[in-house]
């Protein structure tokens, strides 16, 4: 791929970016109008809401009605060309030949040492066109991996706006919005629907473990899409939400977040922080039959030699105090790992956690695990040593997530 040299005038036009350090997403005017809390954080350089009106009640919008969450800051790459499938197959862990046009799969990709660079969703928009959505940025890696493939890679984060519509009434909202045919989408299906003079791509995907959809639209059509959904959703209880609520739902669903639950290979300054797929619960993605892919040799060798040193597990912790960033012990003494995310789950009514443990703990040795919780209460740490049990993820499994046709609530 030839290097892109930008013209002086194109560069000059972009100079003004420094005037706003934190960008606003295409949906920002609507979010700002709804933001009673004025509670923002920075997501990948964008201003994004932590909460809009009530971080606890926003969670219940996900589990009881329909919650609208702006995912525009998610990094997006367009991968297109005759060799797009072969390239994606070389790049990622799962077999992309099995990913038919109109389907999405959750996948991950590794460097040559088998260390995970990121996880994300791969959308097959057509036979030779894909969209890769992820947390971190990978353009040099993608471009270098594309050498020898007839494929074009373009970063399109700013030009494509995204919304997640999640919750029991999310289908009802889309139907009310006149998006005919959405009822046919099974989990991980995607399809394109008319919107204004363009289209909106809707997939039955999400980060909540609930019935839900993700919608992608040209950034210029973002506000009209928002308005269309909010208008249609009014009688179906649609509410805009911030990240705090979404994060609770994603922990219940057992999903991991790059550089929160594991450190990505390109960010790990400390050499021992990198992880192989098997070490963060993504071993199931590794398709050893599909032919060569980046990191394959190293992953298979590590499996063969038993060189996998970590394991990511779901924990159920005694009591009701969230164990966020607690140290995990075996027999209450030996330090064996760390909790990366933890909440009291309102839906499971359990105290749940995602933790990374040093094998064999969490792998073959799962008994007698404890977490040490430091709960700050009125300027004093209350130190709790609580028993933790390794459990399956997701912590919350909802039949409505996968029911087809989708439930009409």
């Amino acid at each position, binding site marked *: 791929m030839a*290097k*892109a*040299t*930008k013209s*002086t005038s194109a*560069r*000059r036009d*972009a*100079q*003004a*970016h*420094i*005037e706003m*350090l*934190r*960008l606003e997403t295409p949906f920002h005017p609507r979010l700002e109008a709804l933001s009673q809390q004025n509670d923002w954080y*920075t997501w*990948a*350089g964008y201003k994004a809401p932590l909460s809009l009106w009530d971080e606890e009640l926003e969670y219940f919008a996900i589990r009881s009605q329909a919650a609208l969450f702006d995912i525009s800051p998610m990094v997006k790459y367009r991968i297109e060309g005759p060799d797009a499938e072969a390239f994606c197959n070389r790049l990622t862990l799962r077999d992309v030949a099995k990913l038919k046009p109109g389907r999405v799969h959750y996948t991950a990709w590794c460097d040559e*040492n088998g260390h995970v660079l990121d996880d994300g969703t791969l959308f097959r928009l057509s036979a030779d066109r894909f969209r890769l959505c992820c947390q*971190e*940025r*990978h*353009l*040099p890696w993608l*471009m270098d991996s594309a050498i020898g493939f007839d494929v074009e890679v373009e*970063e399109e984060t700013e030009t494509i706006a995204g919304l997640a519509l999640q919750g029991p009434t999310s289908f009802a909202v889309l139907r009310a919005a006149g998006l005919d045919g959405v009822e046919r989408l099974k989990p991980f299906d995607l399809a394109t629907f008319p919107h204004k003079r363009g289209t909106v791509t809707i997939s039955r995907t999400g980060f909540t473990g609930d019935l839900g959809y993700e919608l992608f639209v040209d950034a210029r059509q973002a506000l009209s899409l928002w308005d269309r959904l909010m208008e249609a959703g009014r009688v179906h209880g649609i509410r805009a939400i911030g990240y705090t609520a979404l994060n609770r739902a994603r922990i219940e669903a057992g999903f991991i977040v790059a550089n929160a639950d594991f450190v990505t290979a*390109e*960010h*790990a*300054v400390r*050499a021992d922080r990198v992880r192989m797929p098997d070490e963060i619960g993504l071993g199931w993605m590794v398709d050893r039959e599909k032919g060569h892919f980046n990191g394959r040799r190293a992953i298979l060798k590590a499996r063969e030699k038993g060189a996998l040193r970590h394991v990511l597990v779901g924990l159920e912790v005694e009591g009701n105090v969230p164990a966020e960033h607690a140290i995990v012990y075996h027999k209450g003494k030996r330090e064996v790992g760390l909790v990366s995310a933890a909440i009291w789950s309102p839906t499971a009514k359990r105290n749940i956690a995602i933790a990374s443990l040093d094998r064999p703990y969490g792998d073959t040795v799962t008994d007698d695990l404890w977490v040490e919780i430091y709960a700050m209460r009125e300027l004093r740490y209350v130190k709790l040593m609580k028993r933790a049990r390794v459990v399956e993820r997701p912590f919350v499994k909802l039949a409505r997530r996968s029911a087809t046709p989708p439930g009409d609530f």
Partner: protein
Amino acid sequence: MKTYDAIIIGAGHNGLVNACYLQRAGLDVLVVEKNDWIGGAAVSRELTPGFLYSNCSYVCSLFRPEIMRDLELPKHGLQVIAYEGGAVLTQDGDYLASYRDHDAHRREYARWSPRDAEAYERYARDVTRQCRFIQPLLMRTAPDPTSFRPRDVSELVYLGRKFAGLSAQEMAEMLRFWTMSISDFLDEYFETDVIKAYLALSGIIGTALGPMSPGTAYVLLHHYMGEVDGSVGAWGYARGGMGAVTRALADSFRASGGTIRTEAEVERVLVKGGEAKGVVLAGGEEVLGRLVVSNADVKRTFLKLVEEKELPDPFLRRVRNFKIRGSSGKVNIALDSMPEFPALPKDSPCLRGDLHFTDSVERMERAYDDWKAERWSADPFLDMVMPTTLDPTMAAPGKHFMSCFVQYCPPKVDGRDWTDADRDAFAETVISQIADYSPGFRDRIVHMEVRTPRELEAEVGLTEGNIFQGELTFDQLLFNRPVPGYAQYRSPVNGLYMCGSSTHPGGGVMGAPGRNAAAEILRDLKKPTKHMSEAHDVI
């Protein structure tokens, strides 16, 4: 006649750091300085009324916070203010800025190349990894690999363990990094000329090598391992100019009972029976000391201040061959108003940071070609800052001090010594480069101080005007700095120590050589070193 416990030759920052630590250990210390001002190359002088210059060094990052704390420098007025950004102005009227905000920095790179914008992450990670390896070594005496003393063995084991703790791949990366050119290193990450040019600056500053010379990648690291209050890699201005560093050190030293004598040039070190007994000042006055510590560079110390007969031949030969080549000059400018750079947005944060005009590595290398031919660069590389944009103490409101570090600038011109006419022509080269990007620049100039290697050597005492007291190439680092066998601040003359930037870990206003030398001296004297902080943890 009074005999001091220790005499320090030179009131540069390392000499003063050394003096402070020795005085605080209970020694009676005298610092002798040839000039009527103190500070060496960390100095701020008012050469024209109303303008304070940072005459030599001009920005601060490397100075060790452990030393600032130990010697109570904040109490004595030291404050370092991080600066806001920086830019290379390009020949097509655009610029590449460096911004503190992570995402703004990425978007700025993306203006030039979306790929390079996202490549910066991995570049920063790799440089950070190298920094983390080297940082803990700064405040430790380098082990002598030829010695079997328990301390050397244990330090070697420490170094070996650190190295052995790396994966095979990391070891390979490290060896490559320590020996490769900054240009080759950057090519592994970036495709855009101006981005590589900006990042390559740190690989050649103060070094008589071009960006394509092997060994320059390490020089970059040397500029990255500093910090401003925990912000690793950040650079800042010492409030009141770089002289504020040595003023604070001198005040701290005097407050603990030490004595500084200015206008006291050392003619030679007094050596009797292979032992340093004091110094002989110009004019013949002898000052006695139980030990002598030289802040001068290794060549000046052993080729000018110590008689040859006192030194073993192999040592002398190595000192003569020590690479300490002059490669840079300095133009300090007093301005009666803020210069304009039409390419930059109004009130750009880059104006409160470092500015440059060299927009490709190739131009940098061409500038080096001139140096090899013993001429100053016709198209030099400038590292230009205006500390008065953040520091209200150096000039009146609305007036500015501009510091231009200029590279390359040879120690001799066409094989002969610099003349005043050469110096003026050199300054004109610099001014005309700035004026190309800043209309009306000449009209704002109130006063100018031009320093070629000739002035730097004559006034500050830096051999050939080399700002690091010896190049920071791998062959002259760690246990090879300044020469093998003498990397632990001692010399062939008993009681004569070195504490300048010629010693480990090298140049820049870091203070670590002065501090480490004090630790060795106190060890020899069997004095406690409890007043010296251990290096901060790298976790």
